[in-house]
């Protein structure tokens, strides 16, 4: 009777030992792995005695691979993470350098080609005429010409116009159109002056 009871107690104790070894977290597992390694080294000697009995041999063999698996998993992860961080650190300066390099026109070097520019300055007699011309020309500017950028500026009696594009052929079209419109604007200004003079003349004749 006593023999079967003793056997059950021994098995229960061994199972509890295995569960306790498997339950700890990663750092505990590492510590336990080292301890288990040392214990294993020391245990080899005592295990020889239990091996003689034959019963504790199974838990000893099971404990060894479990303890080895636990420390292996975090170490490659940590190295991979540090490697990725190093790569990210290496990439950032390169991209920053690329974005910070100024081009000839003030843009980044990655833009490549330089835009072509053409400007015209037209000296009017008065600031009023320059402003009239600017307003008329801006209103008549063709919005379809998206490939050519136009900029109109009136500074005192000087009208300045600047075109920017990548295609010299478009320059010719845009500038010719502008000059045609400019001629028309000047003609209109002259007519306005003529009308004003005529009205003044009529006013004087009525007064007399």
């Amino acid at each position, binding site marked *: 009777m006593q023999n079967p009871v003793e056997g059950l107690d021994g098995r229960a104790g061994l199972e509890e030992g295995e569960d306790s070894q498997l339950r700890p977290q990663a750092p505990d597992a590492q510590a336990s792995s080292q301890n288990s390694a040392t214990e294993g080294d020391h245990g080899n000697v005592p295990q020889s005695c239990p091996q003689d009995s034959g019963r504790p041999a199974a838990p000893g063999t099971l404990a060894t691979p479990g303890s080895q698996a636990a420390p292996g998993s975090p170490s490659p992860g940590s190295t991979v993470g540090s490697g990725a961080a190093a790569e990210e650190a290496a990439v950032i300066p390169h991209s920053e350098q690329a974005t910070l*390099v*100024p*081009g*000839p026109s003030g843009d980044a*070097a990655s833009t*490549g*080609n*330089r835009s*072509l*520019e*053409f*400007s*015209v*300055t*037209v*000296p*009017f*007699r008065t600031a009023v*005429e320059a402003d009239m011309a600017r307003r008329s020309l801006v209103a008549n500017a063709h919005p379809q010409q998206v490939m050519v950028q136009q900029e109109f500026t009136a500074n005192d009696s000087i009208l300045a116009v600047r075109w920017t594009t990548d295609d*010299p*052929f478009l*320059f*010719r079209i845009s*500038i*010719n159109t502008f*000059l*045609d419109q*400019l*001629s028309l604007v*000047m*003609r209109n*200004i*002259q007519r306005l*002056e003529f009308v004003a003079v005529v009205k003044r003349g009529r006013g004087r004749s009525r007064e007399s």
Partner: protein
Amino acid sequence: MELSGEYVGCDGEPQRLRVSCEASGDADPLQSLSAGVVRMKELVAEFFGTLVEQDAQGLAEDPDDALDECELDSTMQIRTL
């Protein structure tokens, strides 16, 4: 009075077109300016006509070299800066 135009190509060097619009005697300054505009139009047509022809010839000979020249100029500008 002077009607002026300035072209800046991919090499960054400016080229200027100038038309004098001096009024003679009792002539209307605006009339002189209008005549100057006509003259400027002729100069622009001549200038860009030549430029377009040169560009076309350059592309016909070797399109890649034309692009390389612009990029080379840009690179030189960057180095200069």
